């Protein structure tokens, strides 16, 4: 298959993949407490459906989706709701959010599952609802509610290509790779479900070319499956080839227009872990209560890929990997490139957690003192979306947000390539995240003041209308009075005529 390339990027960044992947996926035990931040997907936080003291089963919905862009959350083991309160959750801000805690009872009882042996018997709408109700979000790290991406029923997208993202371009992360090695059958079935739902003619499963074994395994699985619509493709290992936009460019040579989604150009791109979750939900009736996560880094004794219940505290995952080492320096959610630091290991595993990296001092990327920017342009030459980070940095630092926006700040995918390339060790992406949030706050403020202005104008208009109505009423009253008996009329005329005479 013909491949294209995207501009920039960092070659040969696929390091430390073997730290965690040679051993089989291990199932992590159910912890005594599970914690569910209600904000673990893009969009509105879920709304709790349970009260403290209530007994729940595995797979029971404990919080429902709030609106269009949102997702429900399910208990991942049986037990009693012990607490609903603000707790720390994995987020770059380091803030807390409303969370539901479950004290597990060790029985791990499940709700009854509605399995569907043949998904082709179901309508598209039924399938979309299954994905929605299973609480499935993008498991590659973005956590965007998946049902929206595949709801071909409510849109008139003309989807021709389904892309399955198996390119884990960040160093260390290997959870998708081990999933593809061990559960290729399920993933393949998941791809067929998606092809059926989207009406796409072909599916391309992309993996990086360093994963030779996985490629051989998938090729064999697919040839056994005998479905010619599905193709497995090896792509060059260039970070960030696993980014949605870069993967689409690599496989099709097309760009997703700024501000648009891939479906607008007939493409849907889904992470393989998400495909597995969709297959489990449709075929086995299992909602999303666990995921595969890579626990790795020099700071952990035995790096592993774990299948863990969502809500498990990270400290428990570290225990399964035989604890921290002496070098443990920083706890990072996600990979070394795009991940963010966690302040505590009591923070739970959420749907988006694909990796827990316990980094040693040497592994922490930006530990060097930042020096002045000399405009060397290394950042621009590695930027996969052709931005000029050196100019964005200049404008972001001086809070010239309009100027930064005019250099397309909002098109930055925050891949961190520029941070790595910068010879002055400037944490560029940090500056861009800050400027982006400032821009968004500005837009929000503008929106609010616009709303306030509209309200004010509406109020003024209402007052003016009321006034006019009152004037109209009193005019009518007067008119009505005028048409009354003549005597009154005479009286007033007399009164009027007497005034001038009194003045004289």
């Amino acid at each position, binding site marked *: 298959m013909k491949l294209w390339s995207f501009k920039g990027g960092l070659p040969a960044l696929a390091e430390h993949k073997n730290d965690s992947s040679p051993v089989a996926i291990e199932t992590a035990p159910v912890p005594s407490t599970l914690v569910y931040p209600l904000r673990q997907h893009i969009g509105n936080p879920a709304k709790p459906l349970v009260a403290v003291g209530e007994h729940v089963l595995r797979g029971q919905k404990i919080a429902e989706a709030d609106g269009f862009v949102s997702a429900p959350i399910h208990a991942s083991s049986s037990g009693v709701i012990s607490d609903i309160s603000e707790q720390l959750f994995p987020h770059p801000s380091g803030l807390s959010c409303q969370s539901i805690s479950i004290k597990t009872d060790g029985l791990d009882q499940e709700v009854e599952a509605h399995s569907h042996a043949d998904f082709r018997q179901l309508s598209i709408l039924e399938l979309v609802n299954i994905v929605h109700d299973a609480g499935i979000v993008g498991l590659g790290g973005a956590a965007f509610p998946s049902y929206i991406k595949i709801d071909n029923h409510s849109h008139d997208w003309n989807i021709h290509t389904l892309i399955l993202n198996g390119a884990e371009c960040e160093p260390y992360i290997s959870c998708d790779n081990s999933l593809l090695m061990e559960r290729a059958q399920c993933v393949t079935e998941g791809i067929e479900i998606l092809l059926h739902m989207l009406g796409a003619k072909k599916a391309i499963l992309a993996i990086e070319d360093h994963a030779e074994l996985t490629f051989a395994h998938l090729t064999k699985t697919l040839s056994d499956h005998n479905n010619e619509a599905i193709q497995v493709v090896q792509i060059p290992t260039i970070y960030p080839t696993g980014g949605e936009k870069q993967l689409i460019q690599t496989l099709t040579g097309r760009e997703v227009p*700024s501000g648009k989604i891939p479906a607008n150009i007939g493409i849907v791109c889904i992470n393989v872990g998400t495909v597995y979750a969709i297959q489990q939900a449709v075929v086995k009736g299992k909602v999303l209560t666990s995921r595969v996560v890579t626990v790795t880094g020099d700071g952990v004794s035995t790096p592993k890929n774990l299948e863990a219940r969502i809500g498990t505290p990270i400290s428990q995952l570290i225990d399964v990997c035989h604890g921290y080492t002496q070098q443990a320096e920083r706890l990072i959610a996600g990979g070394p490139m795009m991940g963010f630091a966690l302040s505590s290991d009591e923070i739970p595993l959420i749907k988006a957690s694909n990796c827990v990296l316990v980094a040693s001092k040497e592994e922490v990327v930006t530990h060097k003192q930042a020096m002045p920017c000399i405009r060397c342009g290394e950042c*621009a030459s590695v930027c996969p979306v*052709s931005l000029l980070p050196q100019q964005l940095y200049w404008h972001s630092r001086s809070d010239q947000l309009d100027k930064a926006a005019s250099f397309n700040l909002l098109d930055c995918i925050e891949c961190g390539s520029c941070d790595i390339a910068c010879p002055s060790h400037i944490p560029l992406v940090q500056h861009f995240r800050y400027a982006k949030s400032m821009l968004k706050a500005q837009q929000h403020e503008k929106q609010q003041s616009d709303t306030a202005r509209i309200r004010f104008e509406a109020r003024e208009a209402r007052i003016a209308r009321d006034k006019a109505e009152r004037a109209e009423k009193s005019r009518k009253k007067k008119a009505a009075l005028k048409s009354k008996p003549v005597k009154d009329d005479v009286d007033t005329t007399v009164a009027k005529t007497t005034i001038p005479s009194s003045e004289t």
Partner: protein
Amino acid sequence: MLWVLIALVPGSVTMIWQFGYGVLFNIIICVSTAIMAEALMLACRGRPIIPTLMDFSALVTGLLLALALPTIAPWWIPFIGAIIAIIITKHLYGGLGYNPFNPAMIAFAVLIVSFPKSMTVWVLPASLIPDGLSIADVVSLVFSPISDNTPLQSLLDGITAATPLDQMKTQLNLNLTVQEVQANHVFGSLAGEGWQWVAIAYFIGGITLLAKRVISWQIPLGVLLGLFACSMLTYLLEPSSAPSPLFHLLSGGAMLGAFFIATDPVTASTTVKGRFIFGLLIGLLTYIIRTWGGYPEGIAFAVILMNMAVPLIDQYTQPRVYGQK
């Protein structure tokens, strides 16, 4: 920066070999003054001194200025130049990364405007000085005040001459042909005697920087192409009154400017397209100044003028961003 220093070695050595110890004194005074001025300014501004000095940027600035100065100069010329470069052009604008103008070139321009007499005294290449020049002579020329009608002045008169670029310009104005001008002994087989080898040494250093990916090709190619295209055009039209492209490329500061001065990332354009345009226009301006301007060499003024144009170039040469029209 370390590679820039290494790449300047062949050019510096050739220049000392061709033009004598005056160049060495320039280098010593410029570099030591630049480093001391940098340390002083860093101390005043409360910045870390040793880590910043270790980026070698002050050293490179000092060396570049030294290599642009006349081959023999009284000590205060390199001294004042280095002060202007580091204190005024660099630190008063905010230090490394914030200076809009190339420090070495601003210093050169200030010196040539302020001290035209001292800045136009160029020692002849060693091969053209019959008795040679002893280190003692150089020391006295650099460190003693020189007044008219003294033995020092006559020593100086005996060993200096206008540069080939200067001679070419003044004598073409006297209606001589290029061939007649080049009959003078200051001209060599390719360009100026001595100068041609220095230019070739800079070229080798520049190619090393390109190979090491310390600089990108757009700026040097732009400068050399701009200069080459202009001189080629006029040379083809009027070979008697326009010196050859080879003469232009191998004379004065063309090679030093193209590979080492215009490529200063802080003051150059930062986009790929922009860098080429930046270089090309430096080449064009250099040719214009050399041919019709008031100075025989135009690299410094061309670089400064184009430094001013950098924000404009950067604004209009932004690459198309992914997903944008």
